[in-house]
């Protein structure tokens, strides 16, 4: 049993470290773009420390870059709209974390795409916890360090797109999604959500298309269309197995 336990645990650790490394790569891109948008190095770093959610950070600096401080309300709204996603993840991840309130506050701070995906991709509750905290630590350290690096060397770096850093972010998210695409139901939801988000991108504010695409999950999950043959959640009796 302990062999199984350590194998699943170390797989979760490896996944977390790999995802942290990838996040570090596009942290450089965030830092460089933030400074180019008009933030100073301190503001760039405070956002990575406190907000700590890449999508919202990119949205915020994107609005500031084009509209300046005058576009402040729009910048805050864009960041918040993209941040709603993390609240939804929290509902899913909270039962995995458990523990006292301070542990939940710490977990909430680092509840993002990366930690949620790595955690929920693991087979047992124990490896889900290991996956969550390893990814949280690796991503937090990597993202904050490279945000600073990007802010400092932004001028020398030039356009982060020239280095393919935007494509690196998209590829990393495919990697987070990949282990889930084994059942008809999840494949159907992933495909339909992608189509909905693309169709809505030209007509809605940035951030909203992704949220509306979440309706696909509510409908398919609610009616249990394309039903899976195996249960979607880790059965509780496997805890500590």
């Amino acid at each position, binding site marked *: 049993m302990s062999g199984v336990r350590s194998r699943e645990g170390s797989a979760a650790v490896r996944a977390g470290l790999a995802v942290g*490394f990838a996040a570090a790569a596009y942290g450089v891109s965030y830092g460089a773009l933030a400074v180019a948008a008009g*933030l100073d190095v301190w*503001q760039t770093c*405070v*956002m990575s420390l*406190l907000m700590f*959610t890449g*999508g919202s950070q990119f949205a915020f600096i994107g609005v500031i870059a084009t509209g300046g401080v005058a576009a402040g309300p729009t910048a*805050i709204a864009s960041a*918040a709209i993209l*941040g709603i996603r*993390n*609240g*939804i*993840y*929290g*509902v*899913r*991840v*909270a*039962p995995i974390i458990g523990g006292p309130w301070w542990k*939940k506050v710490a*977990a*909430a701070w680092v*509840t993002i795409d990366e930690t949620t*995906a790595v955690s*929920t991709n693991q087979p047992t509750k124990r490896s889900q916890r290991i996956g969550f905290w390893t990814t949280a630590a690796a991503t937090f350290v990597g993202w904050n360090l490279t945000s600073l690096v990007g802010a400092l060397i932004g001028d020398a770096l030039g356009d982060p797109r*020239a280095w*393919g*850093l*935007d*494509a*690196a*972010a*998209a*590829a*990393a*998210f495919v*990697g*987070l999604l990949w282990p889930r695409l084994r059942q008809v139901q*999840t494949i159907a*939801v992933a*495909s339909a*959500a*992608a*189509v909905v*988000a*693309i169709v809505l*991108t*030209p007509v809605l504010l*940035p951030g909203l*298309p992704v*949220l509306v*695409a979440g309706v696909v*999950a*509510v409908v398919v*999950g609610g009616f*249990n269309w394309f039903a899976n043959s195996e249960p*979607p*959640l880790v059965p509780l009796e496997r805890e500590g197995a």
Partner: protein
Amino acid sequence: MTLWLLVIIASLACLALKLAGYLVPPSVLDKPAPSRIANLLTVALLSALVAVQTLGSGTGLQFDARVPALVVAVVLFALRVPFVIVVVLAAVTAALIRLSGWG
């Protein structure tokens, strides 16, 4: 100072949203339908994000070097190439295509 204020407000708003999820009682997920939906939501949101990251450009759509880079990533993940190598090769693909003057 004003930009500082914006940075702080936006950051606190995002933190508050993260905390809100943890205030939902875990017993909500005891029933099959809500637990199924919560699980599928992570899949739907991630997939929608990938789509927008690959084709989105502000409030428009743009077909550029990100698309072939994503195709490379999908093929490599299907071949079970390790995560970090796939991410690096996807970036290299996009960078080389842009170096050649397209996308």
